[in-house]
């Protein structure tokens, strides 16, 4: 069974939700603690769940990006381990430089919780690899700092490098190019603002999240 490390920082609050979703997706979830280094070779994938690590103080994800465990995350990224950042996890990956761009305060300057429709664009990510390009997914968002920003040059590079992974069909937060998720150049590191773990069962209102956390069935 695949071993998936789930990283917890002080203030992470989607940790248990993600932990369970990974179980439902057929893998073994294993806790990783922010203050401890871990063996980067020991995991088939890593997930950084959402929440408010360090209370979002300074900037969302900025303090977590400098936590001890991130050294091991970086090592795993270099080894090509699939790594997924969800919401605050995405912010942490951007702050740590493992993903390009920055997540800033939503246009409208308010927290926003709603179901959104996503369109898959790039095909590099090992997460959701079975989805064809142009596939549509319904998944909830819940964030105040989800406006993805890049400069023109980086946007062009992302487009050329197939790094734009997911886009909103209706832009809820003013993200550049309506981007909801990106990957790194190699494709093994991916981040998205929506919460796939909140769309895992019919009773939640949809199961499309399974198509993103699909590495292990």
């Amino acid at each position, binding site marked *: 069974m695949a071993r998936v490390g789930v990283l917890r920082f*002080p203030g992470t609050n*989607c940790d248990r*939700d993600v932990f369970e979703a990974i179980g439902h997706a057929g893998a073994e979830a294993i806790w990783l603690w922010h203050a401890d280094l871990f063996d980067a070779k020991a995991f088939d994938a890593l997930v950084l769940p959402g929440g408010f690590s360090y*209370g*979002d103080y300074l900037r969302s994800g900025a303090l977590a990006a400098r936590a001890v465990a991130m050294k091991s995350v970086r090592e795993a990224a270099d080894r090509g381990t699939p790594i997924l950042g969800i919401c605050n996890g995405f912010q942490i990956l951007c702050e740590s430089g493992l993903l390009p761009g920055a997540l800033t305060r939503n246009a409208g300057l308010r*927290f926003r919780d709603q179901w959104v429709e996503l369109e898959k664009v790039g095909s590099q990510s090992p997460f959701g690899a079975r989805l064809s390009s142009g596939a549509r997914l319904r998944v909830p968002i819940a964030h105040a700092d989800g406006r993805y920003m890049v400069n023109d040059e980086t946007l062009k590079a992302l487009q050329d490098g197939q790094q734009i992974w997911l886009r909103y069909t209706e832009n809820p937060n003013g993200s550049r190019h309506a981007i909801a998720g990106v990957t790194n150049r190699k494709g093994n590191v991916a981040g998205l603002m929506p919460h796939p773990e909140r769309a895992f069962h*019919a*009773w*939640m209102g949809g199961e499309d999240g399974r198509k993103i956390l699909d590495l292990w069935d």
Partner: protein
Amino acid sequence: MGQTERLDEEFAAKLKRYRLNRDEHKRICGLIGREPQGVEWALFSALWSEHCSYKSSRVHLKNLYNTSPRVLQAFGENAGVVDLGDGERVAFKIESHNHPSYIEPYQGAATGVGGILRDIFTMGARPIASANYLCFGRPEAERMEKLVDGVVRGIGGYGNAVGVPTVTGQTEFHESYDRNILVNAMAVGLFRPGEKVFLSKAKGPGNLVVYAGAKTGRDGVHGASMASESFGKDSAAKRPTVQIGDPFFEKLLIESCLEVMAEDLVVAIQDMGAAGLTSSSFEMASKGGVGFVMHLDRVPLRDSTLTPEDILLSESQERMLMVVEPSKLQRVQEVFARWGLEAVAIGEVIPDRKMKLYWHGQLLTEIDPDLLTEHAPKYERPFEVWSPRSRVPQAQVAVPIEASIAERELERVLTSPQGCSREFIYRQYDAHVGAATVADCEDSVGVLRLKDSGRGLGVVLGCRPQVMRQDARDGGFDAIAYPALELAAKGFEPLAVTDCLNFGNPERVEVMSSFVAALDGMNELCRILETPIISGNVSFYNETEGRNITSTPSTGLVGLRPDVLKVPKSAFSSSGREVFLLRLPQLMSGGAYRELRGQEPACAGQLAARPFAGFLRALTQVARDEKVLATRVVGKFGLAYALAKMVSRSRVGVRIGRGGFEAARHTLAAGALFHEVFYEVILETSASPSEFRSLVMRQLAAHSPVDLFEMVHLGKTEGSALLIEGLLNVEAHKLEAWSQAGWTNAFENLKLPQSYGEA
């Protein structure tokens, strides 16, 4: 001025400062056998405040119906606990944070959420849901836009960060709240099978008194007594008495507390809420029949200049007081340290019933805790016996209007502050963290899935201030009946109630009379439904410059359902389905529409608990049938409004013929679109009319006398408009646009655009 006069003036100033009156001072002297000294003034001030002592309400609260086989814990602990069976239990409570929220809306509302969450996890339950009951003044009232914005941001800012989903809410607008808004926060926590319930009763002389969490600062000093006073012109000057919250700290406190409880390292635990360290320590000792030695100089401080009195009264947030066996202290400290928090022993439990408070080795006071907690004064405030109000002949209840203006009037209703969309509010709350949310604020009941059993837990709020203005006893009854019906309409059996009794100045006869009447209405129905009231609080003195709020006994109910797979929606699901109205007509009211038109309240008939209970039980069973697709209780603004809501959200239309409307309203007059009948429910079903009739009749026959009910076949879902033949024909998108416009007309700066371009 002579010396006696001067002394008397000083004495009067002292009484004023500590918000005690002369009789209370006399009572204190009688109890301790001497004049109070030093910090004792502060202790009595805090614990004998209305907020902590319930001195005006105790004599009435003791009559509340608060037991049932499911109740594991009622009043007297931090929250009530109900047994769901299968090893699952829930703790829940609602509490007011009105005064602080009016003074400083963001922090007032945020710490309201933080405080109620602590009441839940202090018992060992993980918080799984939040809900908010809000009453604001007219949008044009002074500061109102800022108050709405601040309160909503505060609730979101705290609840979202701490990771507890906000699954339901209720927001009211009325001029009586112009200068005194209401912010009531409810929280629900879950004990999974095998998890233990922790109480606040201190035990075991020699055990340590341990302070954990955030350091103590100057914020909230005298907060409890501030909340027990009416507002004057100087409310802005009270800002320093408002607490400041930090949801990040709270999150760490939740995890560390639940961890020490899971390891069974704690004997007793209570959060430091109103009146901070004073109330938590005195109550814990008093309940356990023991005493504490406490060294106030060992309390971790944010500000080294705090005096012992400040430390005792500070309402700094995110703090807990625990009783821990000495051998377990080290492990407790390790757990807290792992989460970056401090846990410090500040004293110990002693066998005599004495609170011995020290400051750098000097004894400040030695006092029996019961004198402050159990011997607070109890007032029997004068009140008048209730008699029914606002009664008129039935024919005069509805507002007569011409059919030609029906559409315009529906627009007026949907664009009014009371009728418009609340989407701006709930979009800013995380409703899905926890990955257990089945239905959120878009539905009339918040629904969570219980992980271990797969059953559904329904959470809903109640109290319609407009009904309270019409008749307080009916309003109290309705504060239970309406939310119970909302639960039943989704297939949930109501289990128990928490209440937050927001009233004006209890020293006024009319306020106290409505308090007694409302409580009586609530209590009567709870007893018949066997749905006990197990927790809550009382907020008096919601009065500003002599004006009292509408008496507002808000409620929170939880209900249980065997599954979560086919919970009926609150909007129509698809075209070609049959639409029925199930009714138990007891009281007919001009309701919110009369009020919108500026007319006096008017109603006819009376509410009766027994037939209601039968109706409720039958409806619960009907709503569990998988052929019931959508349900909605008909409430404010009557039938037209309820149907408009069911159409606008899903864009699935409905056609109601003349026959259907007449059967439902016994008239074809346009005014009948908007009057309210207590109680009615609209149901959409995939069954055929005859199939549905027999399903309903079977349930009704099993639960109550059938002849009290009416079942009306209203019509069918079709197209995309709300069509009531001869009266209304409005497209769904137009209804939605009206509903949204109502909000933006009221608050032009509070916007949340649907989407932004490509950017």
